């Protein structure tokens, strides 16, 4: 198994108390798997992504364990994590547009970064150039300042940079959100290329755009209000979801060719709970049409069939009856 996460719980410290952003996340990502991590804003997906690589205040590690390639990832220890960063686990951040030092030529920054991590820039350079070719960036980019590049170019450069040392796990945080549709396609496809050419072993793609995930992800994990709701192969999530939230989410997506006059777009009524003082038990129960009294207990994230995990008492009930 590439990545194993057990009971990962991370809160945000604020002056008014802890915001319980991530509660007992347990899941695995296999070698070569591209797992999509989806959910609405504030569901905890970025928290999850960041806590794996840079758990820094105001984030606070509460409990849990993370294992990558059978080695423990000490995510709570900023110092010790440094050995793993860039080399075993890496991230394409949400702010990729601003991720590079504006007053340093890109090539210079790359070389300084590599050297500081005890990697020779000289020996890495040929591979770097090959990858630049792959993402269709000219080698001249290394001699330019970030401000001279377009948004899409910067995105691609950061992608190349983050994956340069062939990490086992690459976290891609909202890498398509700021791009136009055609750029989105190009970037998403590049991500798959990286995995196919084994530059990276597994990828976690964090996004709120499920349609992208449909194109590139092997599996999708849905989160809601800091809790894991469902995880399954992409086809299953899209065409046969079991969790009520996932079902509502998928059905609220517009479909190509369907006109509004024929079928109305429905959302999910209500709002996600504030995580400063979240409701006990399943956090979706206030909006869930299937909620019943058992839901005041937190449903565990269990495998109901092969490679299909759900956290919902109703689903367990249905399964038990089946």
């Amino acid at each position, binding site marked *: 198994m590439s990545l194993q996460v057990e009971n990962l719980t991370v809160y945000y*410290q604020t*002056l008014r108390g802890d915001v319980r952003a991530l509660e007992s996340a347990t899941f695995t990502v296999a070698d070569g798997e591209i797992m999509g991590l989806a959910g609405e804003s504030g569901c905890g997906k970025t928290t999850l992504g960041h806590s794996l690589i840079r758990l820094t*205040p*105001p984030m606070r590690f509460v409990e849990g364990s993370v294992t990558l390639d059978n080695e423990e990832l000490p995510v709570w220890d900023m110092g010790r994590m440094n050995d793993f960063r860039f080399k075993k686990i890496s991230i394409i951040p949400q702010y990729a547009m601003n991720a590079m030092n504006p007053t340093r030529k890109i090539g210079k920054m790359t070389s300084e970064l590599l050297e500081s991590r005890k990697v020779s820039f000289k020996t890495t350079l040929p591979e770097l150039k090959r990858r630049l070719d792959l993402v269709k960036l000219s080698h001249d980019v290394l001699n330019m300042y970030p401000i001279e590049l377009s948004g899409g170019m910067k995105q691609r450069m950061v992608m190349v940079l983050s994956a340069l040392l062939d990490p086992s796990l690459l976290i891609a945080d909202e890498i398509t959100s700021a791009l136009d549709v055609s750029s989105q396609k190009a970037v998403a496809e590049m991500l798959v290329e990286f995995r196919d050419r084994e530059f990276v072993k597994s990828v976690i793609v964090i996004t709120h755009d499920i349609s992208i995930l449909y194109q590139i992800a092997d599996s999708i994990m849905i989160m809601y209000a800091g809790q894991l709701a469902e995880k399954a192969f992409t086809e299953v999530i899209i065409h046969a979801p079991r969790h009520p939230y996932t079902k509502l989410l998928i059905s609220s997506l517009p479909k190509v060719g369907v006109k509004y006059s024929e079928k109305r777009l429905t959302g999910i009524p209500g709002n996600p709970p504030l995580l400063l003082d979240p409701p006990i038990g399943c956090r979706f129960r206030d909006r869930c049409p299937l909620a019943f009294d058992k839901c005041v207990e937190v449903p565990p994230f269990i495998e109901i069939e092969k490679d299909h995990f759900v956290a919902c008492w109703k689903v367990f009930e249905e399964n038990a009856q089946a």
Partner: protein
Amino acid sequence: MTKPKKKSEMLYFALRNNKLRVGLTIILFFLVLTFVGPMLTHYDPYDYVNPNGAQPPSSEYWFGTTMFGQDVFTQFVHGLKASFLVGIVGGGLGTLLGMLVGFIAGYRGGMVDEVLNTLTNIVLVIPTLAVLLIIVAYLEVRGVFIESVFIGCTAWPWAARAIRAQTFSLRSRDFVDLARLSGMKPWKILFTEIAPNMMSYLLLVFILQFGGAILIAATLDFIGLGPTNAVSLGLMMNNAVLWGALLLGVWWWFVPPGVAITAIVGALYVTNVGLDEVFNPKLREM
């Protein structure tokens, strides 16, 4: 909407912010002293009260007396008044002029902005002291008010720059676009939409101008270009040095005024930082 909640939240943080409390306490202390002080002493600043000349602080003369036998404490509390006046008038004027230039430049942009920018840069580069020297040296009688006006007229570029930058960023916000679309006149937009959103920022700018004005006034007074008809802290220091207080060790003449200025201006700066933390949640410490 969430406005009332926001206000009380700010008050909550304001009352708990250490920097704010310390800063405001110090300023308040001196302010009270300015009003109460003259009542505590029954002399006038320039009265010759002690025939023995310079005397160290005692129970009769709290801050001692000057070379000429004048009560230092009396001079001190009257000087405080001058300093606060300069701060408010000079700082206020500087802020107002800065607002005028900054708002217009930031809102209009384009050519207007370029011209105003050049003007600001020119006034910035000219050493204000030199200009004031020339102008003030020619005037016979000067009061605290005139001094404040001069200071305000030369200190505004700082405020203008800061306000312009803020106006720029606010101008591109949706609610301003909406106001423009609805046909609101630019002046109205500035005063009813943009300015209220910058209130906290304007307050910070004013505080810095206040402190700066006090410092500039102290320097001017020290050189001898201050008010000719009033006592000021800078003037006290000027007199002290002029009449050899240094050589004769009459420290009580020059130490209090300097301590007061340092304390007030320092408190203003600290208050500024504290207020910034209250207004800007990101800066609050965990």
